[in-house]
């Protein structure tokens, strides 16, 4: 693979409009495909990233189209690192209700971060009141077979 040794970073900024998630996904998947990453892994990353960006739009920026969501996608031979930053009030991930608790099973929402942690290898959430939230999630890639 030609990109094997030099990490590349791709950047996208979108306004907080729910329908823009389609554009975010297309941008992400196109760049991962260009880097020769397997479809199986691409869909895991895409699921996780759409969760994170939906949260940034809905919760962080509360759907205010004046507020932006920034995404960096860094692809190296070893991993794909995603960083999503919003302009919201930050939040405490420890305070999120357990989506596996019996009484929460029929809730329509509340599984996003849980799924991100399951699909990605490392996830860090940095919410600073007044400065927004940055979520960083990394997916390790299998060693190249060629």
């Amino acid at each position, binding site marked *: 693979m030609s990109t094997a040794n030099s990490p590349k970073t791709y950047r996208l900024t979108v306004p907080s409009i*729910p*329908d*823009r*998630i*389609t554009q975010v*996904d297309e941008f992400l998947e196109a760049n991962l495909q260009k880097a020769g990453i397997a479809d199986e892994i691409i*869909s895991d990353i*895409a*699921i*996780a990233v*759409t*969760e994170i960006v*939906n949260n940034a739009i809905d919760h962080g920026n509360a759907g205010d189209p004046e507020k932006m969501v920034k995404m960096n996608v860094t692809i190296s031979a070893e991993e794909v690192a995603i960083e999503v930053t919003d302009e919201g009030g930050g939040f405490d991930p420890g305070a999120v209700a357990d*989506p*596996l608790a019996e009484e929460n*099973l*029929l*809730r*329509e*929402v*509340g*599984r*996003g971060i*849980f*799924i991100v942690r*399951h699909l990605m290898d490392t996830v860090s959430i940095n919410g600073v009141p007044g400065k927004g939230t940055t979520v960083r999630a990394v997916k390790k890639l299998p060693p190249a077979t060629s």
Partner: protein
Amino acid sequence: MKLSHREEAGVAILEPRGKIMGGPDATLLHDQLHEFIKEGKLKVIIDLSGVDWMNSTGLGILISGLTTLRNNKGELKLANVTEKIQSLLTITKLVTVFDAHDSIDEAIKSF
């Protein structure tokens, strides 16, 4: 996501296709379920064979369909759950909530 629907043996079958990732998807699916309820079609199958993947928005839509139909004395079944979606249902414990079948035929028979 693209959405079509058909009817078979008195059962309404919803056929989403593509990726269910949020944005416009939730409204589309939810409106169609409400349309069914209005028309008295209360046995509904969601055929997932054409869905590449979904995130928690998709799971939320499935739950909304399930509870809305139950509140109206109807029932929702899933059919042709792909491996990727099955794994999401498993880790979120939603396997215990949904009635999933390997084919449309089996899902129809299960009502």
